[in-house]
């Protein structure tokens, strides 16, 4: 469990993280979404005790990070892939971290095996590709077999195989009952990996909700319909129960009716269709809609879980 309460970080006049409240629960993957520069990494660094917040606090399993008896055994983090001395071997990098928390050297071999670096463990990390560095960073996070894991953009630099591997790893860790908090600016990736999402923009919490709820409550699916007889079609569709709006270019946006049903209505009245294009509500659309709100300073979002109503 990770909890943040009123977490705030300022760099001079710029507010990087602004009164952030959220809870990351165990047993699920929680995605941490926001545009680049929205404060995701800063938030994670504050949770890991690397940056001191100007206000507010965060906790790991109810304890301040600094008070943990065995930090690596409670929380593992991948914050930067390249945070490795290029002259040190992967094995020695992990060994020196393991020793800080009295983790046996045999565990180093286990995690090297788990991330698929056992064959190159003796090589200097400076020769690693970005993908291998990511794997080494993930191995370091897993070292203490911790119940809480943070990953900052873990799929950066990975090939499709690697991305699938990370996705399965994260889901597997969550299924084991761990708290898994993973940041990304890639909505599509989060849609496949995360159960819950926390969305921030300009350092402010926009929403924390299960992904299913988020996509369902966004403006959502609609169908773009073009027809030379748009007015007649629009009236017919409204009579059939759909919500129809006319776009400036003459196209109709139809909500509440599937494309097949729209085609049937048109056919029944002999109306010609030039276009019938369904739009599924994606996490990405939900995200864009939400962050646009925040960037325009419209304040609270469509959702019930807002900055003020967030868990404390």
């Amino acid at each position, binding site marked *: 469990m990770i909890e943040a309460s009123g977490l705030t970080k300022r760099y001079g006049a710029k507010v990087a993280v602004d009164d952030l409240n959220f809870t990351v*629960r*165990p*047993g*699920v993957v929680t995605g941490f979404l926001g545009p680049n520069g929205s404060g995701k990494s800063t938030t994670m*660094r504050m949770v*890991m*005790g*690397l*940056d*001191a917040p100007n206000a507010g606090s965060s906790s790991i399993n109810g304890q301040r*990070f*600094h008070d*943990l*008896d*065995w*930090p*690596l*055994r409670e*929380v593992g*983090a991948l*914050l*930067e892939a*390249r*945070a*490795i*001395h*290029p*002259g*040190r*071997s992967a094995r*020695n*990098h992990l*060994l*020196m*971290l393991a*020793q*800080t*928390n*009295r983790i046996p050297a045999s565990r180093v071999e286990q995690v090297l095996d788990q991330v698929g670096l056992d064959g190159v463990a003796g090589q200097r990390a400076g020769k690693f590709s970005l993908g291998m560095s990511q794997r080494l960073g993930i191995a*370091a996070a897993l070292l203490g*077999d*911790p*119940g809480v894991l943070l990953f900052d953009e873990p799929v950066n630099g990975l090939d499709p195989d690697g991305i699938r591997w990370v996705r399965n790893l994260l889901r597997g860790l*969550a*299924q*084991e*009952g*761990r708290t898994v908090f993973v940041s990304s600016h890639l909505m599509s990736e989060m849609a496949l990996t995360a159960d819950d999402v926390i969305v921030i923009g300009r350092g402010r919490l926009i929403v924390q909700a299960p992904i299913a709820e988020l996509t369902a409550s966004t403006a959502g699916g609609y169908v773009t319909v073009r027809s030379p007889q748009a007015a007649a079609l629009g009236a017919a569709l409204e009579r059939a129960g759909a919500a129809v709006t006319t776009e400036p270019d003459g196209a109709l946006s139809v909500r509440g009716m599937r494309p097949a049903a729209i085609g049937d209505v048109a056919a029944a009245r002999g109306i010609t269709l030039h276009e019938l294009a369904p739009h599924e509500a994606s996490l990405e659309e939900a995200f864009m809609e939400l962050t646009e709100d925040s960037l325009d300073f419209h304040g609270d979002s469509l959702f019930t879980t807002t900055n003020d109503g967030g868990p404390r």
Partner: protein
Amino acid sequence: MSTAVEARRQFAPPVPDGRYSLADLVRSEWTKLRSLRSTRWSSVLVVVLGVGIGILATAESRANWQHVTHAGFDPTQTSLIGILGVQLVIGVLGVLVVTGEYGTGTIRATFSAAPRRPLVLVAKTAVFLGAAVVLSEAVAFASFFIGQALLTAPAVHATLSTPGALRAVVGSGLYVCAIGLLGLGLGVIVRHTAGAIGAFVGVLLIFPIIVAAMPQSIINAVRRYEPLQMGHTMITVSAVGSAAKHVIKTFGPHVHHEIVKVGGGPATFSPWVGFGILCGYAVAVLAIGTVLLVRRDA
């Protein structure tokens, strides 16, 4: 949700009693130090430079023995002169022990594993100091014995029982270690390799050059506070004895234990007083570094 709660209950890895300790961090820091090639190269450089310069200096003195006067010849100092080169390598190594971690981002992995930063610095300092003591004392003793062996008759040579010689040999190694701590402390304050090495070289080498351009009164007042001067006094044996009377005459008897005048130059502190002041510099720099370490974001 219920599956999540159930899963959380299942997940509870075993954890040892107590808390991560200084001993754990010392083990980790030793792994860090020994696992870098730069450490091994620096160690080789320290030995080659320290012992090598000593060999060159003593061999040269022996070879030209017939052609020069030997009034102030100090066989101990001649054999230990390489220490003044070694201090640069050890100091830079001290800088790198810290800035290498900042430059690569490893420091954030370290502090994520061990958030008590002063404790990490204590462990780092202890491991570095241990390695530096072993290395520099080995170089000092090797330089002394090889150097004295090269000073065959008719050249004069010293033994460890020569008054002041043991102090010079042991002290020169300790002097180098204090310089190394100064470098380490500057590394913690500056955090960037280039900047920290610049600061280190500035304090050690550039500052004396600036002082040398000043009026004699300022030189006389400031010179004895320079680390290089303290190192020079530490490795010097014979000149101290011959200058002692002059000191008493110049400064009066109440200061003759602390200040001696060497070869007509500006006054210097006696070897151990100078060493104590140098350690004070290192402690001060490390103390400032510790405060910044805790206050700054990693």
